[in-house]
């Protein structure tokens, strides 16, 4: 016997479990909380499954397929055998050894004394730091400015916090010829200024940017900072790729600009810093009066983060603190290695008619696919944006996995950006070689 169940929203489908159906039926009311409305879809769930199913050469999801540096692996092994405390709860807001070295390390860079206990929160990856930030600071009706293209989680996180995303796009600079590098994609200061209203609570920036790879220059950050100060807005700065800049581009921390420390939450990632994305250790750094709210969310959601991984990261950061700026530094070596891979992939894409946009920083490169003509003869993807269809075709027919860039645009603007796909080049040379072979073969057979 079926009970009528209310269905809310076109994206939601309620499936009743028929097994074990009690005579009175189950949950005739709506089960899920309203905060989940419209945020149930997720590209990673879909595309990582597809890449796995087709055993594709994976330049899709952003993780290295080479190992973390040996000093970090050793640090982890030492932590595991370091006594019973390594396997039990540590300080909830961050393992003391880790917050102390993070404070020391970043104080030197930002040029101010960062308090390890007050100004830092360790989280389960940068992802959870973002979650704590939105949950702590965004209320129903607050507006949050998001720069497009954006790492896809910002929009659903703002929605889940009851906020309203307001979008402002990076666009190719006018009248300068083809936009060949991420530096050519800029914000219009006028357009940006117009997005700030009395309801604006925060702006989210990501530098180096995912997926474009843009590294914001000092002047660009100053424009944003001026608006934040003028409108008394909080800046959420996602800097997970902070060590990965190329061609002499310099990473600038907006929190170090005048008037910005007291209104900025800067987010970092051990996973991206030490090529160990599976450890899920991240942090948020900012003025204590803001951080205390993130801590409240943290203590009421996960409370603690895994101890041994935090200990290992603290050892890694101490080592990097000691060799900072020298050739021994992993933060110096990794971008050099990736610089080569970036060039290699860009050259390969160009040679087969794809038009890459050379990134100044980060893990990714986007390429314009509008020159490519293929018969996307897949009825299962008919209703989807062109880049989604193209990516799925590329996985199924060619065994190469990438990510459609329209996933990094707002639902409102997705239609206008269906001609780019994203490649991750933080891969072993053998993986890049395999990708090259696929692309060359495809290009030769056209």
């Amino acid at each position: 016997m079926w009970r009528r169940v209310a269905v809310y929203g076109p994206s939601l489908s309620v499936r009743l479990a028929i097994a074990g159906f009690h005579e009175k039926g189950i949950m005739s009311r709506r089960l899920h909380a309203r905060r989940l409305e419209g945020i149930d879809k997720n590209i990673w769930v879909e595309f990582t499954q597809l890449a796995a199913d087709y055993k594709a050469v994976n330049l899709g999801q952003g993780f290295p397929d080479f190992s973390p540096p040996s000093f970090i692996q050793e640090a982890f092994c030492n932590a595991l055998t370091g006594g019973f405390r390594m396997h039990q709860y540590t300080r909830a807001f961050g393992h003391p050894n880790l917050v102390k070295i993070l404070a020391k390390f970043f104080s030197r860079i930002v040029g101010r004394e960062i308090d390890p206990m007050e100004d830092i929160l360790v989280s389960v990856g940068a992802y959870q730091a973002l979650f704590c930030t939105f949950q702590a600071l965004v209320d129903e009706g607050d507006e949050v400015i998001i720069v497009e293209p954006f790492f896809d989680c910002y929009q659903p996180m703002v929605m889940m916090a009851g906020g309203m995303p307001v979008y402002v796009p990076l666009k190719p600079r006018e009248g300068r010829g083809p936009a060949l590098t991420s530096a050519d994609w800029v914000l219009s200061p006028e357009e940006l200024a117009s997005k700030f209203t009395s309801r604006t609570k925060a702006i989210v920036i990501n530098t180096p940017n995912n997926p474009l790879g843009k590294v914001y220059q000092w002047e660009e950050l100053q424009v944003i900072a001026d608006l934040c100060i003028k409108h008394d807005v909080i800046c959420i700065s996602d800097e997970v790729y902070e060590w990965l800049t190329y061609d002499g581009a310099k990473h600038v921390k907006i929190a170090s600009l005048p008037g910005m420390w007291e209104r900025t939450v800067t987010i970092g990632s051990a996973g991206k810093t030490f090529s160990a994305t599976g450890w899920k250790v991240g942090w948020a750094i900012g003025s204590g009066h803001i951080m205390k709210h993130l801590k409240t969310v943290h203590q009421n959601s996960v409370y603690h983060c895994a101890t041994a991984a935090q200990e290992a990261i603290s050892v890694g950061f101490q080592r990097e603190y000691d060799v900072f700026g020298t050739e021994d530094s992993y933060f110096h070596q990794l971008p050099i290695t990736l610089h080569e891979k970036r060039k290699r992939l860009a050259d390969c894409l160009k040679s087969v008619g794809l038009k890459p946009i050379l990134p100044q920083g980060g893990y990714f490169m986007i390429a314009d696919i509008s020159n490519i003509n293929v018969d996307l003869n897949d009825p299962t993807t008919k209703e989807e944006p062109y880049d989604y269809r193209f990516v799925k075709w590329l996985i199924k027919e060619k065994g190469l996995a990438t990510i459609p860039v329209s996933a990094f645009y707002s639902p409102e603007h997705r239609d206008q950006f269906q001609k780019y796909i994203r490649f991750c080049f933080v891969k072993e040379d053998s993986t890049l070689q395999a990708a090259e072979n696929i692309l060359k073969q495809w290009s030769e057979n056209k």
Partner: protein
Amino acid sequence: MASIKHKNAKRIEGLDKNVWVAFTSVAADPSIVNLGQGYPDIPPPSYVKEGLAQAAMVDRLNQYTRGFGHPTLVKALSKVYGKVYDRQLDPFKEILVTVGGYGSLFSTMQALVEEGDEVIIIEPFFDCYVPMVKMAGAKPVLIPLRLKSTATTGISSADWVLDQEELAGKFNSKTKAIIINTPNNPIGKIFSRSELQAIADLCIKHDTLCFSDEVYEWLIYKGHEHVKIATLPGMWDRTITVGSAGKTFSVTGWKLGWSIGPEHLIRHLQTVMQNSLYTCPTPLQEAVGRGLLRDFELMGQPDCYFSALALELKGKRDRMAAMLAQTGMTPVVPEGGYFMIVDVTALNQDLTHMGDDEPYDYKFVKWMIKEKKLAAIPVTAFVGEDSVKQFEKYIRLCFIKQESTLDAAEAILKNWNKG
């Protein structure tokens, strides 16, 4: 100058206070015997630690895994719990891996509870339930366990029960869920089949959900049986059951847990997961998965860690109860879990000099830490205001400690009456 715009969002208003903040700094003082916060000072089983060391050596296991749970782990969970539930569990649709049991509770609340809902919580409760319900915008409705015995010795956690009429009176049309915790923290009560049936009947009658926190499910002492409310008729479809690797393998610092339930509920917890932290650490999940598979093969045998740990703890439980009793305190011997509450009334400790702005147990614990160098947790930290009087003569002690820690506690307790 503090900007008004930098104020916290309404959802966390008033949720910044926390009993652990007050009492864990105590743990740092090595001269104090700490039976307060609940974590083992005994080592985890070596094969679990080795599993982690091995996992960390595999490149792929240092990178992102499947968001809702690493395949090795969810498959192992479906095997172990498939046997326990006597039911086929879909590892990908009916299981979610989370950051500890804590993370499972959070995902459950955020997924299924909202403004306008009421959630019934049984006192004394693990302290996070109330703030999590509030953060989800809902109203906590509290009901206390009541001591039905008037004896002064030989009290067990089984003597603490719910008044059935009182419980029925808490359910109404706004009730979205009831949270149960069995074995219970702090009392150690294991809800019997008939007690769970009474709760189940009300859930079905009022069409509510049940969130069953069973993190201590393996720590069951001889003569008692852990019953999963989700296995009662009509309950699978409306129950989320929470488990914990930290409590199962004595690795609280790994922060891995899981939610098990029907797909139509778990999918909403998965939505929260993908919008909050996305995935849990890979090498830790691999190690827990391997540990579970190893113990799955040994289930029912004395070598199985699930039952071996309970056996080891029973001795500690009985030892702790005896050392407390000889001071004149009245321990409540738990049927499960690794905590024991004890009634300190008989000691007649005069604490009027400490003022009257705190419940008696808070004052007693602070006094005990200072004067006796022994730390515990006040039980009123686990109850609402209306139940303070009922519980303020109780303190909670954790006994999953090595023998040397228990020796030190015993020395203090033996000398108690000598001032």
